[in-house]
């Protein structure tokens, strides 16, 4: 009986291990299928022409498959949204972890979580019907569906990511470090700025990278709000067409396994590589500069 039990234990351990590896297996599967459906486009266009080509006219004759305008749009939207979300997210995190009274925190924290829970399509819809006309009037621009609007919406979508991870990092700075700072006569603000923030910098950096990764991969918002013009943006009020928007908008019309279809999958590969890079950097920082205290990072 004891042998039987040991046998079962060992096999269950293996079983759990196999299940736990599913995530990696799925990740690999995603890569394989993206590449399998995306690579054929490079029989028609060279890799350099595809990535640095300035014209995205997939349906004209002859078609042009240059995704540089899409990449430029994705990057500019993400960077602009980070300008909004980083200060907001980090400052809210500090407020929640260091300043807010317990009762206030119990209300504000769920609010940030609810902000994260709003479906992206609803944010996109909101940006389209409420924010867009407002921007059009306020800045007197041709269309309210533009880079700025998309960045604004994405900014508020990545605030919760940045805020919750940063808050975890800030609040897990050991109490003793803060007490030492107070004992030396530092004010609360000085303690936050010169002790707590440096100690939690790796966590905060990770949160920022993950927030930006979320912004660059977000689809519905940029699909509905960014304006959809595949050109390199010259001003923040230009309409743009970031990579996810292009994929989502055109996939339905692209002929099955035609060049356009392959090109969209190849765009997906590029997008996937961007987020993979962001996530690996974030992971690297979180491990290499593992912070003191009991942060979950």
């Amino acid at each position, binding site marked *: 009986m004891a042998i039987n039990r040991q046998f079962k*234990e060992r096999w269950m351990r293996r079983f*759990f*291990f196999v*299940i*736990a*590896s*599913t*995530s990696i297996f*799925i*990740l690999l*599967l*995603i890569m394989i*299928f*993206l590449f399998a459906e995306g690579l054929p486009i490079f029989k028609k266009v060279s890799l350099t022409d595809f990535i640095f080509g300035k014209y995205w006219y997939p349906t004209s004759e002859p078609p042009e498959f240059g995704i540089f305008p899409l990449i430029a749009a994705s990057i500019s939207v993400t960077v602009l949204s980070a300008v909004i979300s980083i200060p907001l997210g980090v*400052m809210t995190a500090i*407020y*929640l972890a260091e*300043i807010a009274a317990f009762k206030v925190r119990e209300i*504000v924290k*769920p*609010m*940030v*979580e*609810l*902000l994260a*829970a*709003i*479906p*992206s399509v*609803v944010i*996109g*819809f*909101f940006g*389209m*019907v409420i924010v867009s006309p407002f921007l059009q009037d306020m800045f007197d621009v041709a269309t309210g569906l533009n880079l700025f609007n998309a960045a604004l919406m994405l900014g*508020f979508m990545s*605030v919760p990511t940045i805020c919750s991870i940063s808050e975890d990092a800030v609040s897990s700075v050991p109490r003793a470090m803060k007490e030492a700072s107070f004992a030396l*006569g530092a*004010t*609360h*603000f*000085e303690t936050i700025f010169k002790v707590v923030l440096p100690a939690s910098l790796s966590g905060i950096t990770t949160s920022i990278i993950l927030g930006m990764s979320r912004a*660059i*991969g*977000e*689809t519905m918002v940029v699909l*509905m709000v960014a304006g959809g013009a595949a050109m390199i943006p010259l001003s923040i009020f230009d309409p743009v067409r970031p990579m*996810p928007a292009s*994929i*989502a908008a055109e*996939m339905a019309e692209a002929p099955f396994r035609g060049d356009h279809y392959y090109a*969209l999958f190849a765009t*997906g590969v590029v*997008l*996937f590589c961007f987020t*993979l890079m962001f*996530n*690996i950097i*974030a*992971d690297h920082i979180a491990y290499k500069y593992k912070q003191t205290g009991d942060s979950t990072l």
Partner: protein
Amino acid sequence: MTKTDVKKPITEQLALPHIKYRKFKQTIFFALFRFAALINGTALAIILFFLLKNGYKAINWTFLTQPPIDSMTKGGILPCIVGTLYLSLGAIAISLPIGIASAIYLNEYAGSGRVLRIIRLGINNLAGVPSVVFGLFGLAFFVIYLKMGVSILAGALTLGLLSLPVIIGATEEALKTVPETYREASLGLGATKLQTIFRVVLPCAMPGILTGAILGISRAAGETAPIMFTAAVFFTPDLPSSIFDEIMALPYHIYVLSTAGTEIEATRPLQYGTSLVLIVLVFGMNLAAILLRARLRKRMHI
């Protein structure tokens, strides 16, 4: 040295010259931090306000229980509600068992070696894959390669993979809150590791796992991009009869009505109404999860 100076602690004496300026700086910055938190709250309030203000009129019994009519310009959204329920429940049915088993391995079995590091890297990266890429993958793998076609099954599988990291994360958190002494007591009584996990650890962690499951469902219910190519269609008049049917879903319905319809302005009330229904659904689940967690935390403190 005067008498008054001696009474004050040395630190305060040294700090005195700048203390007013330093306190002032603190006040300014703390106000700024507070303001940042306020902006987030305001953003949430503004979104909710406009959706409620414009959406509540559209919602009535007919809207919730009838299919769309007159090429989607009138009628209700019943097929979308049903579709979203099918998709998110299907997704959770797939991701919950895999997620719980993964978390059990990570928290109960794995040491801290290289294998664990790689598995974690995999999970973190899976969590970071853009939703539209999940959609592409679902199209290439489930719809085309496995020949499922555009169907509930393909959509639920895609959404299931997408919500897997959420479930794993939440379950792991829940397992971590089970005190080590419980495990030791069980092992001390002669139970095997497996018995300990199934009879002691999992029951204790169950409420936390449920919280994670609710959050997973709400995440799956709100996603649009993954189902665009795998499950959702413009319009089907009938409710689905098998898992190989294509269906309508709330998020996709909002997108279609607000961008692709021929009468975008005329259907605006329907768009607001659908958004409101979706957000009530998602927020309801999230609030349930938040309350459940708060109750748990209270119980843990006692």
